[in-house]
């Protein structure tokens, strides 16, 4: 086994060696600018880009012409929300989204609110799902956009996108889906999901960092956007700037590999994830799964280990790369807003660990991780005053804590 074991594949993924191989020629040999129309280097670059576009389009079942390359899903999210808000401002000023979206959506919505837009942040149920009825209920005549994520990056819960899409179509409101975590792991079909805009990112699917795309529907309806970036009119005017050809080639190859390997790979992920979960929960009591038990990404596990704090737990398994919803592990010193939205108490949010399995994890690594987690949790529980009190039969919820 190689250390550290990387089990944080929701944060990023290693570039697949086959992806890297596909990219390399475009750095030093075929280094042309894809917009150079008058020489071989330009034509080669353009061909590579269009080929990649097709590979990506195949994965999400759209037309290649409907893809706009961006620097990543964050930019795609910004472009979708701000681009629609600006383009359709005569039509309305209301956006519907959910409380568990990625910061790229939430912070963009906050920025739009400062510009005078109104945003409804829908709650989620105890397992993290948005209700299509809630979406319908929140719509007004001024609603111009709905934005709901396909699958959550912390708890893996998959939303009922197709049902929401149907409602959006009924009401004639554009529907954006941040599909960053779902693409390549579960089947995605923009028509089946009835989405008009969709964000995706390469570095979550064994591609390079720094490249993503926004799917922009061309027909039924034709979606138009005001671009964020001007300067040359690349990507049909929606995103100017010289295309990073090697990154795009990598993105395309990554998508092609996902398309080919997804059927077997997602089964393998789910089996490893289930194995990890079973081993941990067999040996430890008071462990709680966060998120939906079945409508969940095949590679995701998010568990709260009662009476033990997340950062201390990660310190105890430092040869394994994981992440936590604890306040101590966040830049803002706030516990995970996603877990709080589920109604998970802050104490359990502080005790949560997210496991993100990936293509390069093995059963051996899973078994090792389970063993080490059990050891670390057991050790920390021995050191925990909360565990001691719970074992004495004290109801922690009834205690008056001396907070300073």
């Amino acid at each position: 086994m190689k250390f550290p074991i990387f089990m944080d594949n929701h944060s990023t993924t290693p570039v697949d060696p086959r992806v890297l191989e596909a990219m390399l020629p475009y750095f030093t040999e075929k280094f042309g600018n894809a917009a150079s129309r008058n020489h071989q280097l330009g034509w080669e670059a353009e061909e590579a880009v269009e080929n990649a576009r097709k590979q990506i389009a195949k994965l999400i079942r759209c037309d290649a012409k409907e893809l706009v390359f961006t620097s990543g899903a964050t930019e795609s999210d910004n472009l979708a929300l701000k681009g629609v808000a600006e383009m359709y401002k005569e039509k309305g000023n209301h956006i519907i989204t959910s409380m568990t979206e990625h910061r790229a959506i939430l912070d963009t919505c906050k920025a739009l609110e400062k510009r005078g837009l109104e945003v409804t942040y829908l709650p989620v149920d105890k397992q993290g799902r948005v209700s299509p009825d809630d979406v319908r209920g929140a719509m007004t005549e001024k609603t111009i956009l709905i934005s709901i994520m396909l699958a959550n990056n912390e708890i893996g819960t998959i939303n009922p996108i197709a049902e929401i899409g149907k409602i959006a179509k009924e009401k004639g409101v554009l529907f954006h889906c941040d599909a960053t975590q779902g693409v390549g792991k579960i089947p995605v079909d923009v028509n089946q999901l009835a989405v008009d805009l969709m964000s995706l990112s390469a570095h979550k699917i064994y591609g390079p960092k720094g490249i993503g795309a926004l799917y922009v529907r061309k027909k039924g309806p034709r979606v138009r956007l005001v671009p964020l970036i001007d300067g040359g009119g690349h990507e049909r005017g929606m995103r100017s700037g010289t295309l990073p050809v090697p990154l795009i080639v990598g993105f395309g190859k990554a998508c092609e590999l996902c398309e080919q390997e997804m059927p077997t790979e997602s089964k393998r992920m789910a089996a490893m994830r289930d194995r990890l979960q079973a081993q941990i929960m067999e040996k430890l009591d008071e462990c709680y799964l966060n998120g939906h038990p079945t409508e969940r990404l095949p590679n995701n596990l998010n568990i709260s280990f009662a009476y033990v704090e997340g950062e201390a737990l990660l310190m105890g398994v430092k040869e394994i790369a994981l992440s936590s919803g604890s306040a101590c592990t966040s830049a803002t010193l706030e516990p995970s807003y996603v877990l709080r939205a589920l109604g998970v108490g802050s104490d359990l949010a502080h005790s949560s660990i997210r496991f993100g399995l990936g293509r390069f994890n093995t059963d051996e690594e899973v078994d090792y991780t389970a063993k080490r987690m059990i050891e670390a949790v057991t050790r920390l529980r021995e050191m925990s005053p909360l565990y001691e009190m719970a074992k004495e039969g004290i109801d922690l919820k009834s205690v008056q804590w001396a907070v300073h």
Partner: protein
Amino acid sequence: MAYSDKVIDHYNNPRNIGSLPKDDKAVGTGIVGAPECGDVMKLQIKVENDVIVDAKFKTFGCGSAIASSSLATEWLKGRTVGDAYNIKNTDIVHELNLPPVKIHCSVLAEDAIKAALDDYKKKSAVGAPTEAPAAQSVKS
């Protein structure tokens, strides 16, 4: 965010984990923090002839919180009760090289120390058990 070696040492080899009997008159117990905050420290001291002869802790919290409370028990042992009040959170920050974002862990440790000392003082201020009061005259 790399931890200082001292924090890692306290985390891997915590000093004085455990519990003292909290009903013992010579034992002072301080519990501070709250589960919703992600930080709870229980600190206990055993005092003989005004000297802290033993100290134990248990902590629910991050590595820095564990290290702060572990260090606190180390420093408490051997001090008089009065002198123990002089332990400041800034001393803990300095000793463990805590970064700014973890300073509050040391503050909580100082609170825990004071809570344990106060608890001991309160318990030892209660005098020898008094006789049952003489029968009161019946109130009219």
